[in-house]
């Protein structure tokens, strides 16, 4: 910790450039969980529960349901795999496996202390890939909770998307934090890298749409406004289109029924998923730390405002036309939305 103070600006750079994500697979109404990263290094990550019908908000859900045990440091993402919710807590080097209804932890997957798990995706029968923010992807045996191997990608792994037997992994930084600029395409059947696809600096978010296309958001070079969204073929990773952001890249969510994507990049901007063009009409001019999309019968866009990352944040709810509907208080640094069934 000693030199952390000297490194604060460095940490902040990474904190802000930490991309956040959303599970937008759910297609039904249900409560919303907000994963709050907490203050970096302070171990005060938490989960906020919000019921859009009653407006009821409950803070510290994980801790309340697990005998006061803290969630940890840096709740990064969550994913529903085989009926359990896997909550990835990157700076605590662990994954909490909970019942998605009760939020009671069934077990904890403690990873090697050198790993900072970021995202988890199912990658086959009884197998999941975990990006680690090191130069590898961890292969997790879901049943045993054991890491069975690693796939070396050469730089820090961040976002991940799986389409069929293909996993696309964003490589965002090299060790030492010089920017990386490629995506690793992995065959999930044999866990081998098929090829790397060079894109632009700092690929971070990877999403798979209903057509099996891969969307990769590159934040762009530091100090330059050259972020971009790449749309790739799901089979071989060939580039279908490059959407220039002329700003830093950020979170990306899909509203598939309307073939619309929303991206946090210089405000919340709209991408036409058919034409693969970006509109200059902004849903919001405010920069948000996270986005989530509830594609239920009453579709709503959620945006997380982390303020200065040292106090409770706010989630703002918009309708699909960009009208502000509601807001609620979250924990510190709301970085990820999960929509329960």
């Amino acid at each position, binding site marked *: 910790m000693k030199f952390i103070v000297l490194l604060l*600006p460095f940490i902040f*750079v990474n904190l802000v450039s930490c991309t956040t994500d959303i599970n937008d697979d759910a297609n039904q109404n249900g409560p919303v969980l907000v994963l709050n990263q907490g203050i970096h290094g302070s171990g005060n990550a938490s989960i906020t529960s919000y019921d859009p019908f009653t407006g009821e908000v409950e803070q510290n859900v994980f801790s309340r349901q697990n005998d006061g045990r803290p969630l940890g440091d840096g709740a990064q993402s969550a994913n529903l795999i085989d009926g359990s919710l896997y909550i990835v807590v990157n700076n605590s080097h662990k994954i909490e496996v909970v019942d998605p209804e009760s939020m009671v932890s069934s077990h904890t997957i403690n990873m090697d202390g050198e790993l900072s798990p970021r995202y988890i995706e199912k990658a086959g029968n009884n197998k999941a890939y975990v990006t680690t923010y090191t130069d590898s992807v961890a292969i997790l045996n879901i049943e045993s909770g054991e890491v069975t191997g690693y796939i070396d990608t050469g730089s820090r792994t961040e976002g991940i998307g799986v389409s069929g037997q293909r996993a696309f992994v964003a490589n965002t930084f090299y060790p030492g934090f010089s920017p990386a600029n490629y995506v690793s395409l992995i065959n999930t059947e044999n866990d081998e890298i098929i090829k790397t696809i060079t894109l632009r600096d700092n690929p971070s978010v990877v999403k798979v749409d209903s057509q099996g296309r891969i969307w990769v958001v590159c934040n762009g070079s530091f100090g330059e406004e050259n972020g971009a969204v790449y749309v790739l073929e799901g089979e071989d990773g060939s580039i279908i289109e490059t959407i220039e952001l002329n700003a830093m890249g950020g979170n990306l969510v899909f509203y598939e029924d309307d073939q619309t994507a929303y991206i946090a990049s210089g405000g919340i901007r709209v991408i036409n998923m058919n034409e693969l063009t970006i509109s200059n009409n902004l849903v919001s001019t405010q920069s948000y730390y996270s986005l989530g999309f509830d594609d239920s019968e009453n579709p709503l866009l959620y945006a997380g405002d982390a303020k200065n990352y040292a106090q409770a944040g706010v989630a703002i709810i918009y309708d699909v036309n960009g009208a502000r509907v509601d807001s609620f208080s979250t924990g510190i640094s709301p970085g990820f939305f999960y929509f329960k069934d």
Partner: protein
Amino acid sequence: MCFRVRICFLVVILTASILPAYSQTLSDTLRLDDIIITATRVPEPRKHQPIQVQIIDSVTLKLSGSSSLAQILESHSGLFIRNYGPSGASTISQRGMVAHQTQVYWNGFNINHPMLGLMDVNTLSAGMISSIEINSVGSSAYGGGSLGGSIQIATNDNQTGLDVSQSVGSFGRIISSGGAGVKGDHWQFNAQAIRDYSENDFPYRDYTRNPTEERKRNNNKVETRSMLANGGYSFGKSEVRSGLWYSHSQRGVPGPIQSQTMRANQEDEFLRWHGNYQIEFSEVKLGGKAYLNRQELNYINPQDGINSLSTNTSGLFEIPVSYDYSKSIKLNGIMAASRAWVESTAYNDEAPDRTHYSAQLNPLIVLIDRFKLYPSVRVDHYNDFGHAFSYALGLNYAVVPQSLIWRAYASSDFNAPTFNDLYWPDSGNPDLQPEEGWKMETGFNSTLLQGNFVQETDGQVFISRLKNGIQWIPGERVFRPQNVREINARGFELQSNTAFLTDSYTVKIAQILSGTWSTYGKSRFPGDQAQGKQLIHTPVWQYKMSAILDFGPLNMMITPRWIGTRYVDEDNQNAIEAYSVVDYSLAYSLKVVGITTDLQWNLMNSLNADYEVIPYYPIPGRNHLITLRISI
């Protein structure tokens, strides 16, 4: 004479080599009046200063068994120390202010790190320190960054004879030290060396694991080697003094328990030299002071691919002049020039430097014998961001001479941006302005002396405000420093020193109670919920006590402290629990044919309190230290 604390006569430290060290407890208390303080740059007895001054004396330091300056301040001062564990950083919160608003001085020379603007007080070995003065003087005395106040440390520069000691303790702690000093009619020289090593592999309860586990702290060892040499020569009305201080510290950096950095380590190394010359011409004292510093601070974390190396170099030269214009007016002035530069891998290929000039006037005006005024003014010029002015006015009025003093002090303050603030690649802000602030305080000192009983009570209330404070706030991609922070602090400090002397024993009790309400001022960004809330990691309430029983050759010290709850987020939604800790010390001193042998046992955290000062940084439970010291 010494820059900081001069003892006109009956010098306590000088007698330390002649008398058993622990027999001075009452005399220390009685002689507090005699200690000349230069915190305001005006040499006057402590009680006659316009500000509250706390002194931690050599006896307390010896009995405390502390490893670092941080541990001493944590137990014996009114400051709050943000302690990240035995091998982690320890930073100061004084009167509710942030760490870079307290400046630390060695022999009057600032030793805060120029890149950070603050001092990690865990890097200074306690064994080198002979006394500590804590005061609240403003920028017009020593320069910027003093809205909280300043800490003046004096190193062991008056030792004579030979002194060796060896300590062993819990968690692999081993301390070896030795020193020697010689003295002639007009000269003196002494040298001292210390090695302080500890594995710090103490057990702790990891409540972040599922299920909770009892674990041992790893990558937590600290090894510090320090050497100090001092010399002085006086001829006629002139005096030359010089000191050299070297320290090398190597430590693991384990990080918080939930995200441990098992291979991170840090190296701190510095070499500091000062030279002072002073000559007297009737009513005029003229001096020249020089200071050179070279400091390396390297942090290596293979896990994250971080290899951050830095070297800062600085030099300062100042000319102090004092002139007793009349019985009523004493003039003190200083002109100084300094230069500092940093080479750091963090700054890529840049090597920023700063040239700094200052001039100040700190007169003393005695209106009547019982009423003294302390006006002061100072101007600073920095090559990288321009001018800053600061001024202060203090007063001291003896309501009842020798028994009841009333004092007041007001000052304007500033603080220069740090090198990181200005030059951090892609984030530093060259347009930053100095932080500004002001503070006002008033208080009293009462002394009751009846027979063998002495009771000194010293109280102070204060209010201070930081404006244009520099804080790193989020931009689109990175945090950048901006002049947005405002802090309003107010509170009180109540100190009590009690001493009782009989033919067979002495009791000395020091107590400090403080209440500090330090809150965020104006809103810094839309939706800022912190306005009016207590600063994070800043307790409102603190109580500390040390009681020393001097029973001939047997000495005992008990040091309890209680620290109130602290918030861990800016909007005060989450707090960390209050804690209380009790330390004990027992020492036996035997003097035979000129050889003094001391055997000392320290019991730290005697109640085995399970607590954290900063969340997820465990503190050792009950632990011991045994010391054998031989002095000739």
